[in-house]
Each structure stands twice: as C-alpha cells, then as structure tokens.
C-alpha cells in the first residue's frame, strides 16, 4: 500500500491524517489556513475548496465541496485547490497576483471581514470553470448572470457582512477563463483515479483518537466492498460524508470502521431504457442532474431545492436514503415517482419498492451487510408533477414539510396519483388516504379541497424550531390546493380577487 498522498495546489503532500480527520482540519494543520471552519456541518461554505472530479472518462471538472465534512483520507491520490492556490497575496516587496475571481471580489467590495471569502472564492471559481457556463442561455426562473453564472453555485456560502450584492456583482462580472489558465487546461485531461486506500489509526504515530484501532478503507471494487461489509457489518459507508461528517463533527461519533464507496464504478452508473432509469447510489446529485438532462422533470424540481451546490456536489441518493432521515428531500420525490431500490450484499441483489423500504425513524429493511446499489425510477413519468418544499429560507434549508405529487389525468378524472411526504412522520411516507380520495374522481375544486383536508390529516407532524405542527398540517393542505391551481389545464386561474365566490373557488369553503 503506497503512503497516502494528496495533491494540494499542484504539490503532492504526504497525508498522515487519521480515520477521523476532516479534509479541513488536515489542510489547516498543513498551514493552509485559508479554508475556515464556520459551522462544521456543511451549511456555511467557509471551508469550501475545489476538487478535481471525473467529467466523462477523459476530462476533469473542478467541483466545489465543503472541506469540513469529508475525511482527508478520502482524498488519497486526489487533487485539491484552495484559495491559496488560486492566487498569491501581496508579499513584502511584491504585488498580489490574483485569480480573476479574486480580482473581482477584491475590487467590488466582496469581502468585509474576509472570513467567508476564501470559501466564496472557491465556490465561485468552480462555477467560473464550469464548461457549460458560457454557452448557456438562462432558462426561465434561473438566477443567472449574463455571463451564465448560476447564482445557485453560491447557495451554500453564507456571508454575514456584505448583504451579498457585491458578491453577486463580482460573480456576474466574470469573463471566460484564459485558455492558458492552468486550472482551465487541467479540465482537458482525465481526473485522478481512485486509489485503494487502507489506513489504520494504530499505524499512525499521532492518532486523532487515542488508543483507537479505527480503520479507513477504500475497497477496489464492489465485490471487495461487499466482502468487507459482510465481515464488518457495522462499518460506516461513506460517499460524500454530508451526513457522516456532521455526525462526526457535532455529535462526536467515531466509527471504528469506515468504508469509502464514492469512487466505486459499480455504484456510479446511470442507465436508462424506455421504461426506467437506474441511478447509481454513489453518483452525486450534481452528476445525476447533468446525466439525466431533464428526463425526469420532477427531479429537476428537486435538485435546486436540495441543500446547496456545495452539498449536491458531494451528496448521493444512496446516502440520502441510507441515512433514512424523515426530512431528507429525495425520499418524497422518489416515493411520488414510484422508485425501487436495488439492494446488494455478498449474497446477491434484491429490489425493494421505496414504499416498503422505511420501517421507522432512521430504520429500514436494509439488513447488515447490505447496501443500496442503485435507485430505479419507472418511465415515462406522470405528466403532472410537483415538488413543494416549505422551509424558512429558499436556499439551503431543511424542509419543514416536503410534498411531492405525481398525477395522471384521463378525461378530467384522476387516473392515478402518488403523493410522497417528508417532515410529517418518523419516516418519509405516502399520503395513501389522500391518494385514495382523489383516484377515480374528477380533478375539480370540490374533490381537491376535500382531498386537501384529508392530506392535512396525514402523518403526525410535530412542533419544533422549524415549524409548528399546525403549520405543517396547513402546508400539506395548501400544497394540494396549489398543485390544483397550477395544474388545471382546462381552466385558467381566477383573475381577480376576493369576492366570496372566488374565495371559495380558490381556497375551499370550510378552511
């Protein structure tokens, strides 16, 4: 086993990090203190860095990720760029040499206290280098500059000083990368391959967990992974570590065995046929979004509302479903789409409808030694579909309630409907009573307002800091009312007002 090594800003550095050291802590320990810890849970982006990821077989894409969540060891053999690597500060007797992103940020007042700035610079640089950026016509509802810069690229970065306007101006002022820009050139070659890494804390002189025998292993292929998982079924599977990293940083969990699965080719396929699409469990959400290219419109509604770009560049469907959180945003959508999970173990594979997958709070039918290999979505998708996420903040928040609806109409009647809900029970659930109340009935205001009242009674919403139970319940009801308002092909919305008749029409009578 060759020693662990990470290339940072073009220079290979040996990495002696233990199995519980984040990429951020390792970088800072190396004296690269540009990346900062702001929240340690992937919410603020002060720790953002660029990593080289595959863009097809022979190209590389610069991707921004939070460095506070993934383990340093997960970057064995990989290439990382920090704010320090993009440009040089003024030194005694020398002028600064700034990257175009840094230049715009500095000149336009994009930094005040400067603490979040290196993270913003990295997230902005990733978008600067996004190959599709220049040629992209902003689509409807997109928040884009004339230069194609997608503001959502910065949705995971918080600034407490500027109010964001100068940062947006800096982003929208960016031109195209110089062809000789080394990071632009780097895109034309293949991304660094995954390395089979195997590290035990007991081998390290300066372990981060005294007396620990914790291990970090990146298996070579799926059979290797399944064999190891069978042997150590309590091993923690880690892809983007967007949940495991939070557990480690905030709740101090220190798993004794970590299996890294993010580079396993068998988990990274996306295959489609006329009647289904199969998505590898270790593809990141950003990769899925690009590869699907609009084939499943409901997922396209989901992606921009799912955490932030920094998180979507690391998070996977396998992780989102594997942790089984009742407030994960993917599950309601996949429930509405009628998805099936492909579970793999050393024994073989089985397919489980997502409807049957969750068994309780963060529990599922997945047995020890088993993992989610892929998610299968039947095609064609229903023509009417929507994902409604209710949260305090539009960018990068956790749902108070999430509702996904997938509907087929035939001659004005509801032929079929599936409704997936998040945030209203110990698991993501389907709104079965509401579905029954709609199916076979005319898609009109009367049916809908009755069904909406049923929907308000689904699940067992709680009061917490995100929302009251009463509000959650009301949002369930409202979501169906809105869906009806937005999917009434034969009847335009009422143009005006609040006379009593329209009020009843739009809102239902007995609210």
């Amino acid at each position, binding site marked *: 086993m060759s020693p662990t090594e990470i290339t940072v800003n073009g220079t290979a550095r040996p990495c002696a990090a233990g199995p519980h050291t984040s990429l951020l802590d390792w970088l800072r320990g190396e004296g690269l203190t*540009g990346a900062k*810890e*702001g929240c340690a849970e992937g919410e603020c982006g002060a720790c953002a860095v660029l990593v080289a990821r595959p863009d097809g077989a022979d190209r590389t894409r610069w991707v921004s990720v939070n460095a506070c969540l993934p383990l340093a060891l997960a970057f064995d053999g990989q290439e990382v760029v920090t704010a320090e690597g993009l440009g040089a500060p003024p030194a005694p007797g020398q002028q600064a040499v700034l990257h175009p992103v840094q230049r715009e940020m500095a000149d336009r007042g994009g930094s005040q206290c400067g603490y979040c700035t290196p993270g913003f610079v990295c997230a902005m640089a990733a978008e600067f280098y996004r190959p599709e950026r220049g040629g992209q016509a902003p689509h409807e509802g997109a928040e884009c500059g004339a230069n194609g810069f997608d503001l959502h690229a910065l949705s995971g970065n918080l600034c407490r000083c500027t109010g964001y306007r100068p940062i947006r101006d800096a982003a929208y002022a960016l031109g195209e990368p110089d062809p000789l820009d080394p990071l632009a050139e780097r895109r034309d070659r293949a991304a660094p391959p995954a390395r089979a890494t195997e590290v035990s804390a007991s081998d390290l002189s300066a372990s981060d967990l005294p007396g620990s025998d914790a291990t970090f292993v990146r298996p070579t292929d799926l059979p290797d992974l399944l064999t190891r998982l069978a042997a150590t079924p309590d091993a923690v599977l880690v892809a983007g570590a967007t949940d495991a990293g939070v557990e480690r940083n905030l709740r101090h969990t220190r798993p004794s065995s970590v299996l890294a699965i993010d580079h396993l080719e068998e988990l990274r396929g996306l295959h489609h046929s006329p009647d289904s699409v199969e998505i590898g469990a270790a593809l990141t959400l950003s990769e899925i979004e690009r590869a699907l290219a609009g084939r499943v419109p409901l997922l396209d509604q989901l992606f921009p509302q799912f955490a932030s770009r920094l998180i979507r560049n690391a998070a996977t469907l396998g992780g989102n479903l594997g942790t089984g959180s009742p407030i994960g945003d993917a599950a309601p959508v996949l429930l509405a789409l009628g998805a099936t999970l492909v579970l793999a173990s050393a024994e073989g594979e089985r397919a489980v409808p997502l409807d049957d997958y969750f068994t309780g709070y963060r529990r599922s039918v997945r047995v020890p030694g088993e993992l989610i290999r892929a998610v299968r979505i039947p095609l064609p998708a229903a023509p009417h579909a929507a994902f409604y996420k209710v949260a305090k903040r539009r960018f990068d928040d956790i749902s108070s309630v999430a509702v996904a609806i997938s509907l087929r109409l035939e001659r004005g009647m509801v032929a079929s409907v599936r409704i997936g809900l998040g945030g209203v029970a110990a698991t993501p659930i389907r709104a079965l009573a509401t579905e029954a109340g709609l199916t076979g009935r005319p898609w009109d205001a009367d049916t809908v307002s009755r069904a909406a009242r049923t929907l308000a009674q689904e699940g067992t919403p709680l009061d917490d800091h995100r929302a009251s139970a009463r509000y959650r319940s009301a949002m369930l009801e*409202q979501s169906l009312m809105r869906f009806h308002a937005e999917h009434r092909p034969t009847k335009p919305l009422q143009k005006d007002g609040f006379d009593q008749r329209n009020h009843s029409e739009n809102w239902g009578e007995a609210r």
Partner: protein
Amino acid sequence: MSTPLSPQPSVGQTVSHESAELHVTGAAHYTDDLVGRTTSVLHAWPVQAPHAHARVTALATDPALRVPGVVRVLTGADVPGANDSGVREDEPLFPDEVMYHGHAVCWVLGETLEAARLGAEAVEVTYASLPSVITLTEAIEQESFQGSQRTVSRGDVVAGLERAAHRFSGEFEFGGQEHFYLETQAALASVDEAGQVFVQSSTQHPTETQEIVAHVLGLRSHEVTVQCLRMGGGFGGKEMQPHGLAAVAALGAVLTGRPVRVRLNRTQDMTMTGKRHPFHASWEVGFDQEGHLEALRTTLTSDGGWSLDLSEAVLGRALCHVDNAYYVPDAEFHGRIAQTHKTSQTAFRGFGGPQGMLVLEDILGRCAPAFGLDPTELRRRNLYQPGQSTPYGQPVRHAERLEAVLEEVTTRADLTTRHTEIAAFNAAHPHRKRGIACTPVKFGISFNFTAFNQAGALVHVYKDGSVLINHGGTEMGQGLHTKMRQVAATALGLPLSGIRLAPTRTDKVPNTSATAASSGSDLNGGAVKDACEQIRGRLAAVAAERLGTSSAEVQFVEGSVLGAGQALPWSELVREAYLARVQLFAAGYYRTEGLHWDGVRMQGEPFKYFAYGAAVSEVEVDGFTGAYTFLRTDIVHDVGDSLSPLVDIGQIEGGFVQGVGWLTLEDLRWDTSDGEGRGRVSTPSASTYKLPSFSEMPRELTVHLLEHATEDGAVYGSKAVGEPPLMLAFSVREALRQAVAAFGPAGHVVELACPSTPEAVFWAVEAARAGAPGNTREYADQLAVSAPTAASVVTDEVAQAGAWSSGATGSQDSVLEPVVVLGAGDNRLQDAEPAPSADSGRPGPVGDVD
C-alpha cells in the same frame, strides 16, 4: 491645529478594503489561524452543564486526567485572582451555580483538541437542579428583574392620551438575534519571552479583555498585552464575550507554561455566548385626528439572560430610540431588564436602538389603516421638524434631513407609480400579493456612556518617509483600518500606499474604548488625524524654513511638499527634519465634545449627532405558504461626507440585510418545556438557525448616499455608519405587512409576529383572508400555540373625551368608521383594493374592542 484638505484628499476616494487582497487569497490571518504557527499549543474544551439552573455539588476531574493527552483541567480553584469575567462582578468564570444551559463549569486542556474533548466528556459533575426562569412571560410574572429600571419621559402622558382623538394599546414580544459572526470566539494566550502575558484575541474591546485577564490572573494591566489582528465579524458579539475566554486561555498558559488556544466551535458559541436581547413591549398610544402622535406610554422589558453584561446600556439606548424619527409630544418610556436562565444577552449592532424603534414602527404599521392613510404618509406626518427635541431633551439637529431623505428615497424608488403597479398586480393574482413600504431611521451617535467617547492613536514617520499608524480601534470587517489609512494619508498629504497600519495592541495604544456604537471612525479617526497633524505641523515648520515661506503657506500634496512655488519630496523633508532633531512620531488623542448625559434621570444630550436614512422595500408574499421574496429595496442614507464610499455602501447594504434577517428569518428558540432540555438553545447551529443567504438579498438593491451632508462635528465631515442602516430593514417588515393586508379586505389591521417568518406571515395571511378582526384574546391564544416567541395584540379604544368623539359613546361602530381621509393621494391603496363585498360578513377596517 487644523489644516485644510489637500487638493486630492484620500478620504472620499473609493478604495477596496485594506485587506481585500489578503482576504481573497486566504492569506488574512485570524486568531485561530495562528495556532499552526505556534509550537506546543494546548487545546481547550469546556464542560458544559446540561441544566438551566443548578448547583454544582461535586466536580471530579480525575477521570479526565486519565484520558491520554489530557494535560490539565482548569477549575475555580486554579484562579489566582478573581474568579469573575464580567465588568459587574456577576459572572463567575468557573461557576458553582450554573445559570444557564450550557454554562461552562470547567475547561480541559489537551495535547490535541480530540484529547481535550474526550477529557471533557470524562469529567464527572454532579448537579442539584434548581427552579429556572426561561421566558420573558415567566420573568415578568415572577418579577425576575436585574439592574436598574429607567424611564425617559417628557410632558404629561396621561394628559396626552386623554387629549388624543384616537387611542390604541397593545403588546408586542419579539425575538433576539444570534450574531453568527462567521469566525467564532477565539483566543490564543502565551507567556512571552519578556514574561508578559500575551493574548491574541478576537475582541472588539482589547483593553477590557486585557483588564479582565489581569483581574482573573491577579496581575496589573501592564503585565498583560492583548492583540487583535482582525475579526471574522463582530457585530457587538465580541465586545464583552471574548473576555472570559481569553482569561481561560491566559490562565491555562500561566499554569502550564505553554500556549493555550480557546476556540469555540459553532455549537459552543451559540450555546455559551450572548445574543441580541429579545424584548417585550406593552404600549398605549394616542393620535390626533390627522394622525399626529400625541402621546406614547410604553414599558419595555428586555430579556437580559443570566447576568447584566451590557443590558443596562442596551436598555438605555432602546429607551432613547423608541421615538425613532418621530416627534412624540408627551412621552413616558419605562424600561426594565428581566433576569432569565439563558446566555447573557449583549451588544448587537444597534445596541437596543433597533428594539426601541421597532416598537413604534410596529405601532404605526398597525394603526395606519385606522386613519385610512398610507402608512408612509402617517410616518411622514410625524417626522421631527427643525427645532424639536427628543423626549430625553436633545435637540434634533438637522431634522430637515429626515424629510429630505424620505423625499429622495420615495422619488428614487418611484413610490407613487409602484403603488399603482402593485395594486394592479394584486388584483390579477389571487395567490400572490405584493407590498411596498417606506421607513425612516434616526440613530444617535456616541456611546451613551460618556467616558467611552475618547480614543488614542500612535503614528510613526520613519526616516525614509514611510508611515506606520496604530490606533485603538479594531477591524471586524467594517473597514475601519481602510478609513484610518485614508485619514492618515489625507492629513499627511500622502498617497495611500505611503501608509501602513499595524494590528491593534494594548501596548501601542492604551485605555481604548470598545470598537462599538458605530463610533470607530469618529473617535479613532479623530485621534489619527490629531497625531498626523502634530507631525505635519512640525514638518511644515521645517519645510517653511527650507522653502523660504511661512508654515501656513506650506502644502502637503500626494507626497510632495509645496511652498513658494517650489516642491520638495516628502521623504527628503522627513530626512531633513530628522537631522534637525524634529520628533517624527506622535500620540494622537480625541474626545467627543459637547456631550452630557444624566443616566439616572435619562435626560441630556448623549449624542454628538444623529445619522439619518430611509428605505423603500417591495416584497411578494405567497398565499399558499407565507413564503416571500424581496423584490427591490432603495436606500438613501446620510453618512455625512463619506470617508470611503465603497466601505460605507458595504456597511449600509450589509447592515440592512442583517436587519432583514433579524426581523424576518432568524428565529432564535429555547426549549421552554419542563422537560430535561429546559433552557437549552434549540437552534444552536447553522442548520437550525438560518441567517440570510443569497435568497434573501433583494433582487434589486440600490444605495444612494445623501449629498451635501457634511457633518461638522466629526472627522472630515463624515458620519458613523456601522449601526444605523440595520434599521432600514423595518421597510421590509412593513412591506410584508402591506402585502399581507392585500389578502384581506381594505383597511384590515395586520398583526405580524416578529421574526416574521414564512409561518408567521402565513398566519397573518390567514387572518387577513378571514377578515379576522384584532380580537385580542383569541389571537393571542393562537400565537401561543404556533409561535411562542412572538405575540402581538392590538386594541383600539375610543377616547373618552377629546376632539375625536364629541358624540362618541364607545360603540364599536364609531371605531370602525374610517377616520378622516386626508387628500386624494392618501387613499390610493384603498381605491386600488377590491372592496369587500357587502355580503361577506367581514368586519370593517379596525377590529372589535375586546
């Protein structure tokens, strides 16, 4: 001496933040970045109590010492000086009595952070739980107060209310705010080669950090030096809170002989450090027929948390800002501080001013429909006029600027046209409504605590002509250092590149005031300018002799010294002055003149001047969810003659968005149940406490600096800018109120909880759609279920006597009747609204009397 500006002064130029190139390359160092440059550092982790109120009955540290890598556990027994980290001697550093959930009872030092963390988990503490007070309601019921209670009053409020044609009363409870500086609290302490205790601290108040460290260690101030390189945001949260953490680090360093690092992670920072004070207000207000304020009586109760900290000063500023921009003839503002078992609430940008002002802005927003007036018009009618004074007796100098900024911002925002456009939009969209509002700001500048209005600087001119400046202020992102370089460059007639600034240290400039109260530029700018002018005066004499002219004729321009038609390079003059044995360095000093304040009677002139501003904001509310988007904000703000426009605009925009966060999004919650978690901050993280992100920035945001606004009393005609813009955010909350109103019948009184989260807005929309009157009791009950941190009620009382009701008998009908409508333009919104249908059964504009 005073010298005229050189022809192209550096002040007023648009320049980037002086550290911008360091920020963007990741090369700017913050306190915790220094750890890797320091050897043998020990890391500290606190043991936080899991009770809101309890006595520590036993503390066993041995189990921690058995954890590999744990070096020492710091407890109260280790303190050589005073076990106290407050300025009021009410904050034990190592408490025997736990006063809030998360209170640190001891600290573990380890070779690694992980070892310290494991050590902290191993410490065994036994607690005897005690009864706790968590909510403001509980505190008021149990009369759990601390500190002094103060009243600002003028005239006869009883007579004023009786005189009023229209009277309302209500209550309003609103939330606090977490600072959420991106850099959490940090300190790194060591005993240096000369034997002094040297503390690097992320502090807004290095002198006080120095004093508390000395106090805890039993040392004198000259044995302790505190340095602050820069902060990753402060916002008031690093005015008091760093002291105890610096003291822990310093104590560890003295006891172990090794550098000790204390850095709170986000959870610790949010559970251990103070926040903006939540407030409760009860009020009675009276207006005349035309909507002019006659009288206001209010009682403000702030939630001070477990100790006093700055709560008295915060309350004082709140009481001095209830009036905001409005003349209140008869006034009586009472204030008191609740003691609760929570973090000790502290300074936060605005320092109570925002809380005081919110009370009256909320009143005006709620009462405007009763007059059939556009709220902007109601506000305009009540603006201070020249010659009027505040209820605490300070003449409102430049009061005409209030009208000026309001006029300019409404013109720039094209308010009239947009009212019409919004009415049309609202008529066409049943599920989405837009609202627009304009609010003014008047904010007093100077510390209410008069002694703090002084500052020092130390300016060195080296023999080669290079200049190094030091001053007592700290840099937290607000651009103070940028401005100070510009002031020095201007005063010395040098290009900006000729001035270098050294980090803030207590051994360079002693006895500094906190960098707070928006006063950093005024005070330190005055001191820097003073030092530079001393040097310049001496150099002018040397130059005069050399050039054959008088000192008064010598000019310093862009690095050249001009006189008698000749030019002399600055560096040559400096060299010559040195050889002539002229002192090339100077200590500068500044104090704000003309202040006087009686903090007991709450009368006097505590402020040097007022900063003015106004904003127009437009929002859109989604009727399905209560979610909203901020469409456009226009701001006109008075910064005097701007020292540094890019910096000032940055402060205005940033302050505004931070204020928007406080009023709409940032929902600070505590566990108020009787369960085990009672008193715990239930939003202790970035995932549970949401601050504004890109999605909360208005799609269009323009800031215009008021022109011809020279302020004679401050450095180079400038005005302070740090805090006042935060309160421009009232325009957003009032715009939300307008949008909510558009869901209901014309004239509907909108009561809006604060923070006005999407959920709060949704319930307000529901009330509007139902045409729900302000039925006090019922509405209060609803809110108690849905949003325990916020409740607001309003009732309208018919005056028993006075101009309004010659024939009024107190019947509801007379209340419901719209008051006189003044001028065609004033009921524009009314006209644009679809009238409630006759058979809707909805009540009229103003709610039932309860």
